[in-house]
């Protein structure tokens, strides 16, 4: 029994008693370097955390993370779970302050894997100086879920909130780096595709890379192109803002190895998720300032202007293709699958 408790997650871990307490105190809490953002934080293990927030508007977001496989080239579900929530705050214009993290674990899940996952979550938060202030752990029976679900909730503070609906005709549209890497890395790993590829997930927190660009006040709208990739992000921004978009395909950054593998699989890199990129609309008079702010940080130094918002075709995204043709870049209908035709 003792051995099992040390190697695998069992029902006892989720039951709230001593076993759980020991697991949390010994193996989970110490991994997170910053555990409070006010008088009551993680260490107190109270019913909630109490935060002292800097002035500004409170931005609040939550996301449940499931990913298969849990460990993938370039990251794992732990890194993804905290990064995803941090990035949701950042693309709202907020500086991330504190996160909560809730685990739902399948009985029998290896503790060593759980530790690795939490270590990578902790590493991201530590680097950012963002606190983990509260959390929860539940265990479900074997077969009742697939491994692990992590829910993270985050709060941040924004001086100027940036919605995804603020694009105005004439604004420049930017992407902060090459697209398609996370989605492709996951697709290759999930389907055990018989390919060797250097493609890794781009999962990375957009803070502090976007801090200086936000401070210019020139960003009118922003979104992280996660599920559905660049195509979904642009369409959503166009629809919510009531503007059209004209995108130059040649300007969309895509790494050669991503393009090559996408061609083999017959999928579009624009529909693949990114986890370390942002799509921005920028007021024309602030373009130079925003670009130089972005290019000063390694994560966003590949930022590119990919097109402009227009009054034509409101709600639609038009792609001017490599050969000079035009087409709609459509909202993807589900995750891409490799095709033969």
């Amino acid at each position: 029994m003792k051995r099992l408790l040390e190697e695998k997650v069992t029902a006892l871990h989720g039951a709230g008693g001593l076993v759980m307490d020991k697991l949390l105190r010994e193996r989970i809490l110490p991994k997170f370097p910053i555990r409070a953002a006010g008088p009551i934080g993680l260490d107190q293990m109270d019913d909630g955390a109490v935060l002292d927030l800097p002035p500004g508007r409170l931005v609040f977001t939550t996301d449940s993370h499931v990913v298969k496989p849990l460990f993938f080239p370039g990251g794992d579900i732990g890194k993804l779970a905290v990064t995803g929530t941090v990035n949701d705050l950042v693309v709202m214009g907020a500086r991330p302050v504190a996160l909560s993290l809730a685990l739902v674990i399948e009985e029998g899940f290896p503790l060593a894997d759980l530790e690795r996952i939490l270590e990578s979550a902790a590493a991201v938060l530590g680097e950012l100086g963002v606190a983990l202030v509260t959390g929860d752990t539940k265990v479900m029976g074997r077969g009742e879920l697939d491994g692990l679900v992590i829910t993270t909730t985050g709060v941040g503070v924004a001086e100027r909130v940036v919605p995804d609906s603020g694009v105005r005709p004439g604004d420049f549209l930017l992407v902060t780096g090459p697209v398609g890497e996370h989605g492709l890395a996951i697709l290759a790993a999930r389907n055990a595709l018989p390919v060797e590829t250097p493609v890794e997930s781009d999962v990375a927190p957009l803070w502090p890379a976007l801090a200086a660009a936000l401070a210019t006040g020139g960003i009118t709208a922003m979104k992280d192109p996660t599920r559905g990739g660049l195509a979904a992000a642009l369409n959503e921004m166009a629809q919510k803002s009531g503007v059209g978009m004209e995108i130059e395909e040649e300007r969309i950054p895509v790494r050669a190895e991503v393009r090559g593998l996408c061609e083999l699989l017959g999928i579009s890199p624009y529909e693949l998720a990114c986890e370390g990129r942002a799509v921005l609309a920028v007021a024309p008079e602030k373009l130079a300032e925003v670009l130089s702010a972005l290019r000063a940080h390694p994560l966003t130094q590949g930022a590119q202007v990919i097109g402009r918002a227009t009054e034509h075709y409101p709600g639609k995204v038009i792609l001017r293709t490599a050969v000079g043709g035009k087409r709609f870049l459509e909202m993807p209908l589900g995750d891409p699958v490799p095709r033969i035709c």
Partner: protein
Amino acid sequence: MCLAIPARVVAVEGNVATVDLGGSRARARLDALGEPVQVGDYLLVHAGFAIRRLDPADAEETLRLFQEILALEEGP
């Protein structure tokens, strides 16, 4: 139908070639190709099988054909 793409051969072992696609690598079986394949060749790969060896000279020939019809028809 029939997505098939040109890929460069980086290794050949028996009836399987390893092909490069801008840094990503995949396997291509050579069963359906009636000719020998060498490292550096280009193959047209469909669903894991090479269906044709491509000659870079033929790609240039294609461009010549394009120019030919364009020139022919661009007259008055």
